[in-house]
Structure formats: C-alpha cells, structure tokens
C-alpha cells in the first residue's frame, strides 16, 4: 500500500503511472480493458452489469487494489471510476444517472483536496469523509445481503414436512342472528319506509298475522277447510277471537274466500281464485 498517494500529497495523484496509457478511451473498447481486471474481454459487459450502482463499483475498485476504505486515494479512484463509466458508454450499457452523479461527487472531492489547506481550518472535515461513510454503510448492507442469501431458506435448504390430513367432513356453519339484530333491521326498514312513502304503518296484533299464516298454510295443505275446524277450543276465547280476526283479515285481503252451499250447510274456507272442480258461483257443496 506504500504506493498509494497520501492525502497530503495531492500533486502525486494527478497521474497514476500504471494506468496512464489505458486512460485513452476513445478507441476500441477491448483495448480499454484495465489490465488488472483479470476477466476475459467478452465477459466485460456482463461484469459491468453486475455492479449494483456507483457505490458498488467504487467498493470494487477499492477492494481490487486492496485499499483501505478509510484512506481512499481519491484521484486514483476517480480516474479508474471514470474509465469504467466510459467503458459502459462504449459498450452502450444503460448508464444509470447515479453513476454520473457519483463522478461529479468524486470530482468535487478531488478539487477540494487540491486546494491548499489553511492551517486555521484544520478541524475542517476531510472532504472524503462523507463518501467514506456512505461506502462503509453500503458495504455493511452488501454483506448483510450476502448473509441473508446464505441463510437456510425454504424451497432451497428447508422443506416443510407435511402430510395428508385425515378424512374430514366439513359442516358449513350457518350464520347466527340475534333477535336484537332482527328488530334493528325491522326498525331500520320501517324508518326508511316512512321517509319514502306516506304509508302509515299501523299497529297490528302480531298473533293475528301469525294466525293468518297458519290458516293459509292449512288451506294450502288441504285445499279447503271447514270453518269450524280452524278453531281449537283448547285455545280459549282469546284463541278463537284471534283466529276469527285472522280469517276476516284474509277475506278482506282477498286471500281466501268462503263457500256455503245452502243455509246452515257447513261453511268452507278455501284459497281465493279459480278452483277446478269447484263451482265458482260458490253455491254448491265442494266435492269430497
């Protein structure tokens, strides 16, 4: 490392003896291969493409010459860096703007180092310090990436041990509904109905509605039912009244109709509408 120019001898950095000739880059790309690159010329393109960016390239240049990052010979590194950039241009590799930015950074550091240092500003930071920090930081993560790649990982080194589950039958669970949810839904829908129409929703005894369903259902099953059969004595007076109201509601809504063949004959209830086999005038006894 003794040939590395020291920080305080900027003059010696202007020309690097060993690389002077190859610094001319406007000719054949192949002749431009730095002699210490040790890679076949046809692999150069691939080689240059492997750099992850300007920091990576700088690190490579430093490591190749076994230089200490902390003591970068800026002029030397800058010259080599520029050479690679020009190589990339010659090879028409897509040159990221970051490389050019870094070239400018290097040139700036170099120019600052060329300026004579006034003794009184000795605590002024070495112009390379910021670059060195970035290089060190980048190198840590370059290493971390390699370490990560070396970790045992699924698909490559680790295979999950698994096996066929036992035969199972799945029952799809049905949603649960709470009564409060149902009430809330009803309240909401009524609230909306109030807003959209002037529809007056009056109070109705639910037992009548329920009984309406039950009467309709029994008619559905049997086609027609004798009026008296719809009442159950065991339900008491209240039950009879509810059933009667339900029947009246059904008749009012033209959901059912009643038929009686003659006075005092049994009254039948049947679903409203045409009925094959029935006399639509409703004055004959239903066929039994």
């Amino acid at each position, binding site marked *: 490392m003794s040939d590395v120019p020291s920080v305080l001898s900027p003059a010696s950095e202007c020309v690097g003896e060993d690389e002077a000739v190859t610094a001319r880059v406007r000719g054949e790309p192949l002749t431009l291969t730095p002699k210490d690159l040790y890679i076949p010329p046809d692999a150069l393109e691939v080689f240059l493409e492997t750099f992850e960016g300007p920091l990576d390239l700088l690190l490579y240049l430093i490591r190749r010459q076994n230089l200490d990052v902390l003591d970068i010979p800026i002029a030397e590194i800058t010259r080599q860096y520029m050479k690679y950039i020009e190589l990339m241009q010659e090879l028409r590799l897509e040159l990221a703007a970051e490389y050019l930015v870094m070239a400018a950074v290097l040139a700036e550091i170099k120019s600052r180092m060329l300026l004579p240092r006034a003794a009184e500003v000795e605590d002024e930071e070495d112009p390379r310090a910021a670059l060195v920090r970035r290089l060190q930081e980048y190198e840590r993560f370059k290493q971390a990436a390699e370490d990560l790649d070396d970790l045992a990982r699924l698909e490559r080194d680790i295979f999950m041990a698994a096996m066929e589950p036992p035969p199972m039958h799945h029952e799809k669970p049905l949603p649960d509904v709470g*009564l409060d949810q*149902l009430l809330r839904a009803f309240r909401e829908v009524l609230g909306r109905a109030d807003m959209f129409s002037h529809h007056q929703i009056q109070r109705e005894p639910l037992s009548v509605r329920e009984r309406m369903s039950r009467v309709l259902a029994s008619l559905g099953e049997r086609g027609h039912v004798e009026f008296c059969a719809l009442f159950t004595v065991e339900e008491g007076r209240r039950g009879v009244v509810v059933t009667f109201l339900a029947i009246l509601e059904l008749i009012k809504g033209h959901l059912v109709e009643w038929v009686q063949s003659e006075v005092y004959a049994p009254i039948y209830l049947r679903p409203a509408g045409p009925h094959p086999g029935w006399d639509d005038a409703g004055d004959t006894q239903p066929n039994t």
Partner: protein
Amino acid sequence: MTPERLQRILEGALMAAQRPLSVEELERLFEGDASRPERASIREALREIAESCQDRGYHLKEVGSGYRFQVDEELAPWVSRLWEEKPPRYSRALLETLALIAYRQPITRAEIEEVRGVAVSSHIIRTLTEREWIRVVGHKELPGRPALFGTTRGFLDYFNLKSLDELPTLAELRDLDQPARE
C-alpha cells in the same frame, strides 16, 4: 448407505413431497449418487418406516400413485378445527326481509319490495327458505298468483319465542332508544 439413513431420506422426501411418491420416484432420488439403493431395499425401508409410525399420530399409506403419509383418522375431530370456517354473516337486506315477513306475514315479495324500496333477491328468499325460517303459506289472488310468505315454527324456535306475540310491538320498537350493542 445404512438402512437407517435410507429410511430417513425416504421419510424426509415423502413428507416434503406433498403428494404420493411411487417406488420409482423414490429410486430416482438417488440418481447420480455413488451407491444407489436397490428397489428391494427401498421397499424394505418403506416397511420399516410404516412400522416405526405405529404409535405416532400418522401412518404410511399406499394409494394409487404411490406412498404418502397420512394423519390418523381418529385425530380428525381436532385436526379438522384447523379448517373450521367462521360462520358468515347475513346481509342487512336478508335481515330486513326476514323482519318484514315476521311482522307483516302473510306477505308477498312485491309487498316486501314496496316497503324496502328495492328488489328482494331470490337468493335471500332461498336462503331463508333453506334455513326453514320462512315458507310459502299461500298465494295471493293477483295476476301471477304471487306467493305469500310466513314464518315457521323453526323461526320461533330459533329465536326462542313461543309465539310471534313475543316479538316486540311496533310501538315498543319505536321506543327503543339506541340499538342494543352488538
């Protein structure tokens, strides 16, 4: 290769494969190795493996396309809980439809739609019918004879009601302050 080592390799491969492996496929695992086990040794190793699982929670099973490990059926009650689905939730549209049928039965679809202001999907009617909460109780004497829906005994049972009377009245509903917490 010792028989034990052969067993370990086969066992590892069978567990990693996530599909049954035939003896031929197991043979191919050793392709390129200096010493390749005979097919007979592989079969013998499979027998040994099968035996060694005797008192574990799984077994080696030969199926159409080869061998695979399978978890014992008697563990199914626990293992199946891994795939247990959370019950889905019913939509607001469904709950409103159900509420209208409960409170205003017998009711036609058109009547439900009139109150709700939107169409009632057949899917909702089908779901409620399959759940056996509603049923067709009759038909209204109108063109097309639309079905009249009512609630069932199953509906009362589910909501723990003796009769529809136990549903809060409309007045009580309106008095309900803020909806009860979920």
